[in-house]
């Protein structure tokens, strides 16, 4: 899992590098549904489309998006708290 600069305790990590839509959201939502309310999920994706659309969909679900951090040219870390 990629290192981020965020000082947040992560409960679950999901490496979705190489995955594209709709799998990035399908797998993020699966992880969130299996977690407890208040727990924090970190997802790493490798395309900008997912870095935008996964947080947007998570917000629609009522979850809290704590951070979207660009790690390098092709990777983003998404930090989502289950609500």
């Amino acid at each position, binding site marked *: 899992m990629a290192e981020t600069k965020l000082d947040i305790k992560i409960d679950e990590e999901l490496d979705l590098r190489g995955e*594209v*839509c*709709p*799998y990035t*959201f*399908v*797998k993020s*939502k*699966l992880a969130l*549904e*299996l977690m407890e309310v208040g727990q924090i999920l970190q997802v790493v994706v490798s395309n*900008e*489309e997912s870095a*935008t*659309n996964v947080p*947007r*969909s998570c917000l*629609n679900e009522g979850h809290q998006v704590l951070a979207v951090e660009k790690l390098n040219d092709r990777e983003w870390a998404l930090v989502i708290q289950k609500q």
Partner: protein
Amino acid sequence: MSDATGTDRPYPNPKLLVDPEWLEQHLKDASLRMVDMRPYPLYERGHLPGAVHLDFPRIQSVVDGVPEMVGRPEQIEAVLSGLGVTPETTLVIYDNVYGQVAARFFWTLEYYGYPDARLLDGGWDRWALERRPVTREEPQVTPTQYKVRPQEELLATHEWVLAHLKNPEVLFVDTRSTQEYHAPDGHLPGAVNVDWMETLTFRPLPGMRPAVELEALYQGVGATKDKEVVTYCQSGARSSHTYFVLRLLGYPRVRHYDGSWLEWSLKARRGQGLPISPTEGKE
């Protein structure tokens, strides 16, 4: 199965969208088969009574290095035979990702000539929020021998897209987000942009927006019913959902560009002569 599915919003092709209230009253109809396309760990924890599970990757294939293309005929025949359906079975499909996976199967079914596929309005999320019946029991299915009949007028290949880019009777709808549409990677020359999520409502319950709002949305970008409308996105899921919406609205000629931007941009990078806007083309 009748055309009535209980929706109170007058869509021109109402049978395609199944209202949860109506479905709850018809769960035991022998002619209905519900298909759950969520990941199996979620299906296992509870699903609609009588629903069978279908894993999304089973309906997709890789073609010429492009992932997430429509499944091959024999692949879809195996899926349908395994679901135990006949041409008389009404399939009601649902997922938990706003219908994009379910709609991908819907388009696949229409492309392969399946007569009666429908989507559950609001999908699993709305069903669960409304506390409708759920079971962990997995139904016993007797396999059938299903034969598909591809309907080529519902599929846009990259060759077809290239040949029709400047046809004024054809309108391409890019169903990705506005940000993706305007990204440096570009979009199809002449394509209009309608984000697929604009068709949905999330509060108080998830579901499809009313017909009058959807019609205004598409007519506002020139997607009128006298045109042939072709949908595409990144991999073909979101655009399958818009294909479904346009069918629900009664558009007579709708195609789906199955390869979508994954294929088009890949072939463009390979130097296969496919134009991209805004750097090339008529914009």
